[in-house]
């Protein structure tokens, strides 16, 4: 008797057990279920939610792998093991096993904790509520390790995941019902609960925090500091990196957010696969560019001078905003979450535009932490239902008008 038959018999035998959803989750992971249609359409498309989610994860895998190399590279660059690469994506200084292994051992635990804790909660809720384990967390679980600093302690991540999944999603009714993007809820929790681990110049490069402690304890070592470009600009310093490096991703930052090139490829793939909304991605980019241009204009008009603390980021060339910080990653992978974004096509244009626009606004004006994508997306998540409401009302009004024209 093969695996297929054994699993089937096991399922049939335990049909009325409470824990069956947990088994089914694993069963349906191995095998597409034997479920058939009843009345209604007798045939169905090949896609299901697992496939949809999996496609998004596939689009993120290049960012994850690049993140591993980059974590090691940033560390080795600071300790003087490697030379800075300049302008070439396939630099031999970057793609080394030594770089990869440092990142691998740092980032794989993040992935494991994220999935382990998050899926654990999903399983528990599925059993309590007696429904199947829904796939929502598959994407969230991959997003989370990519949007945190590499050195974040694992227990903090675990606490944040519990908060994000329970408060961000399950209390609203689970997958498909949440208002806020769960991955960003997790990140926002980390950001407000443990701000020293989420900002500053000590967290972005692997080993920086530890090194600081060692120095404080009297060790004679060079400090590792890895300021993000946004951090430097916010303090009025130079960016310190070539534009090409920003685009390719050889810069410090959260694990998966640095390579605009790979994010762009992932985004194009999602648009091609018809999984990600091109409307949101495009309008968000437009929104960011418009805000960037406005700021540049303000600086050019002389309203803001070099003495202002906003000067550094405001004077940043308008389109550079797309390449630095988490903007690209947020736009492609987080703003497009279909559950928390606007659901109507017209609404998506409005929603996306404001995500981009507000991202850059908060980025420039936030004194504590020079990044705005997270807060902009969370804010627009809250407004998305309102945007949709007015878009749908447009259709309702049209219908009423048609009726009135008849009556009159």
């Amino acid at each position, binding site marked *: 008797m093969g695996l297929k038959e054994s699993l089937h018999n096991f399922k049939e035998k335990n049909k009325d057990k409470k824990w069956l959803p947990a088994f089914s989750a694993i069963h349906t992971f191995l095998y597409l279920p034997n479920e058939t249609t009843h009345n209604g359409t007798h045939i169905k498309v090949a896609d299901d939610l697992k496939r949809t989610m999996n496609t998004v994860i596939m689009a993120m895998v290049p960012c994850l792998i690049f993140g591993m190399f980059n974590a090691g590279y940033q560390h080795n660059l600071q300790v003087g093991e490697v030379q800075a690469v300049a302008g070439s994506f396939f630099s031999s200084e970057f793609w080394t096993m030594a770089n990869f292994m440092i990142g691998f051992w740092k980032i794989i635990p993040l992935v494991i904790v994220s999935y382990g804790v998050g899926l654990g909660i999903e399983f528990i809720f599925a059993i309590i509520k007696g429904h199947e384990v829904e796939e929502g967390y598959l994407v969230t679980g991959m997003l989370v390790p990519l949007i945190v600093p590499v050195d974040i302690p694992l227990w903090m991540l675990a606490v944040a995941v519990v908060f994000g999944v329970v408060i961000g999603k399950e209390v609203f009714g689970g997958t498909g019902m949440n208002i806020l993007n769960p991955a960003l809820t997790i990140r926002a929790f980390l950001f407000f609960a443990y701000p020293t681990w989420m900002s500053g110049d000590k967290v972005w490069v692997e080993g920086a925090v530890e090194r600081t402690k060692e120095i404080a304890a009297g060790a004679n070592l060079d400090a590792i500091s890895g300021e993000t470009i946004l951090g430097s600009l916010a303090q009025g310093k130079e960016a310190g990196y070539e534009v090409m490096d920003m685009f390719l991703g050889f810069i410090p930052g959260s694990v998966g957010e640095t390579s605009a090139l790979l994010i762009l490829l992932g985004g194009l793939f999602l648009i091609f*696969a018809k999984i990600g909304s091109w409307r949101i991605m495009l309008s968000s980019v437009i929104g960011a560019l418009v805000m960037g241009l406005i700021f540049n204009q303000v600086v050019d008009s002389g309203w803001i001078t070099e003495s202002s603390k906003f000067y550094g980021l405001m004077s940043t060339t308008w389109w550079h905003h797309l390449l630095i910080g988490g903007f690209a990653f947020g736009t492609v992978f987080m703003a497009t979450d279909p559950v928390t974004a606007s659901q109507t096509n017209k609404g998506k244009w409005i929603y996306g535009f404001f995500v981009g626009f507000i991202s850059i606004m908060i980025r420039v004006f936030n004194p504590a932490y020079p990044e705005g994508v997270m807060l902009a997306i969370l804010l627009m998540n809250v407004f998305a239902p309102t945007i949709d409401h007015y878009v749908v009302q447009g259709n309702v009004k049209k219908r009423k008008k*048609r009726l009135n024209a008849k009556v009159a």
Partner: protein
Amino acid sequence: MSNDIRIKKGLDIKLKGEAEKTSEKAIVSNFYTLRPEDFHGVIPKLISKVGTKVKAGETVFFDKSNEAIKFASPVSGEVLEISRGEKRKILAIKIQADKEQAYQDYGKFDVDAADSEAIKSHLLASGCWPFVKQRPYDVIANPDKAPKAIFISGYASAPLAADLDFTLQGKEAELQAAVTALGKLTEGKVHVSVGKNGNSPLVGLTGITLHHVSGPHPSGNVGTQINKIDPINKGEVVWTVNAQDLIIIGELLLTGKFNAERIVALVGSSVEKPRYFVTKIGSEVATMVYDKGITKDSHDRIISGNVLSGKQVKPDGYLDYYSNVISIIPEGDDYEFFGWNKPIFNKISTSRAFTFSWLSPKKSYDLNTNTNGEHRAFVTTGTYEEVFPLDIYPMQILKACMYKDLDEMEALGMYEVAPEDFALTEFVCVSKQPHQKIIREGLDLMLKEIG
């Protein structure tokens, strides 16, 4: 104003097993069945009992809530069995057919001289009324409320649908008589739609407004055409009649006989030789499906109707009252190893998420009844809109039906829709939600609460 309707949003589902354009007489069925469930919302009141002899066209039961609406026997014979379900609900009325068919004579009817009341009562008395359906609610038309227009789709775009150009061939006289009669029942127009590149016998009819339709399914759905030609407003009613049923109405008017004969396509990838049969409403499907169709012990699903909106019937089941196609496709009750993430070449998909049906848009597929995934909450957005040409927000109206908000359902356009309009959104639904059922229940709720 152009009478062309060009549909852009939609999806042509190409399946294997399209019917060859030859028709043959099906083996004459010994038993015929009328199933009240075919007539949604009708509570039957029986006239005949077990043992009653009926002629073809003679009333078997009528609608309890509107006694004028009568339902006729498709054949002459003897009522053999009345099967009942819970609370003595009538499930089926089985009639054993006579060897020699006798018809109830309703007399030749002079359509040109008659007024609307005379036509209406003639159609009601002769059992032809159930062919006339109405929107809102997608139920048999209420004869007391005049429609603003009547819509007839002469173009079938559903997967493996019977080609109406073929099945209506040579029936011009009946079709003309029927549309003339129907035209007198409305102050408005009789809108008839035909395929743009077809050769429909409906084109030559007089007294109609002709529309040429092109584009992917659901361009042939009457609901799509209503939405594009003259959408229904609150308080308005339109009537729809299936093109093939015009022939039965027309023949009754011309000859006085209720002839339940119908050309039915036997289609689907499981059928050895897909083709057309001449048969009658209520016939046993067994008279057709085993004749160069499927083998006795095959593991297939027989559907009375098309694969998107038809009803599953057992091999000993019957052709339902409105269908002109019997589809047979393989059952899909098997597991597929890593079916959710491996690249898919042999199934249709509207995405390109490691699914490759976009590479070969002309290919015909052999789909089975597997759901390809489990039921989930609504997650993805924008997929329905791609296949939904009506000026309505599909996901929003579905959700309104689910949380039973009557005001919102009305505002979003519930009066304009029928379950079949949501067949394609149901087909493409990643969350495998039962859209047609949700809409049907929503319509029933509105009918009950608002009327």
